[in-house]
């Protein structure tokens, strides 16, 4: 329940053992193991529908694996296509809601990521008027303000222009430098220092 203390403790860890995932009658993947230590990154690749998003949700603890177990140490921040921002609220207020939930009460902390992501001019605009890319950047701002050591990103580059995509990769690198963990599920190339790549096709059942 408590927010992660700052500065980030280098004690985060993510370990999955012998995961299998089933959707309906279909086994998407099986026998998947994964261990990431502080500063480590993993890029999950694979074709559409192979189970990248399902794996991310299992790692986040939002879905139960069919077989296997996941161990997490440290808080988890998630970005997927659902940004978690109220459409009728101005962006600044919607972001502040999460910043407060995450115990970041000082204004600077909830607004600083927005400035870097080029959202400063949009803080008064209701979320429903934002474009796909702008929403994605808003989700990133929320993630940064959360200060969670484990980042799970599901297709983080969708809808982003080149500059924003580069910025996203830079932000992930910084997160790793500060001892965080990042798992990226994306069919696009994603530049990460010292990443391991995991091709889900190898585990497809």
């Amino acid at each position: 329940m408590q927010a992660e203390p700052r500065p980030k403790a280098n004690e985060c860890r993510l370990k999955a053992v012998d995961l299998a995932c089933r959707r309906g009658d279909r086994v998407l993947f099986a026998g998947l193991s994964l261990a990431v230590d502080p500063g480590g990154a993993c890029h999950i690749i694979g074709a559409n529908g192979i189970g990248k998003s399902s794996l991310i949700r299992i790692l986040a603890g939002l879905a139960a694996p069919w077989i296997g177990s996941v161990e997490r140490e440290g808080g988890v921040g998630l970005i997927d296509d659902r940004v978690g921002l109220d459409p009728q609220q101005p962006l600044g207020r919607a972001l502040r809601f999460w910043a407060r939930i995450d115990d970041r009460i000082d204004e600077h902390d909830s607004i600083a990521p927005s400035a870097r992501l080029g959202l400063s001019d949009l803080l008064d605009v209701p979320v429903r008027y934002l474009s796909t890319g702008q929403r994605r950047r808003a989700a990133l701002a929320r993630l940064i303000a959360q200060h969670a050591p484990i980042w799970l990103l599901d297709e983080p580059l969708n809808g982003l222009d080149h500059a924003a995509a580069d910025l996203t990769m830079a932000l992930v690198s910084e997160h790793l430098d500060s001892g965080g963990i990042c798992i990226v599920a994306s069919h696009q190339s994603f530049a990460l220092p010292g990443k391991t790549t995991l091709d889900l096709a190898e585990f497809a059942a």
Partner: protein
Amino acid sequence: MIRQLGLILRRDIAVLLLGRGNSGATLPILFFLAVAMLFPFAVGPSATILAKSGGGVIWVAALLAAILPLDRLIEPDIERGFFDQWSLRGIAEEWIIALRILAHWLSFAPALMLATLPASVLLGLDGATLRLVETGLLAGTPGLAAIGVMIAAITAGLRGGAALAGLLMIPLAVPLLIFGAGSLANGGSSGIALTAAVSLVLLAIAPFAGGAAVRAARG
């Protein structure tokens, strides 16, 4: 923890009560008044019939008004990822559902009880009946809110969930209606006590049923 729950409650109230663009809390109240206004046209202006059936009409109208906002109680927040983000932060779904029941109650019950005053005039209810209806609504609306949120959680993500939610809610609301409107017939407080008892049972069950439903819908 308490602080986080306070923030979530404030946000829920802002979305449910003041939510612009989705007509907020005004539509169910207008609907409630419309029923009270139409009923005398349908059964004729006989004061004795109206006074006899008016209390029951208010109860039925209140039940239907509580059904109207069901589809925006839970499903939008699942679709927008709010429940995922809360879950990642270790905030239990049961708490969220309990807060949502409170926010839902605040968004319709006080306004409904206020609208009962003009409705009782339209239906020609006397002071004693009005008092019974108001106390009955005070005892019964928390139960209606609990059923509403619980059913909204269970039907979230289903196709045609909104229509199904209305159908599912009606049988569960029958005990409230029997005891609440029944208290009008015998003029006693026992009916209201039973209404309150049913409400308390529903309030105790709903957070757990709703929380389990949200987790199951996550898949």
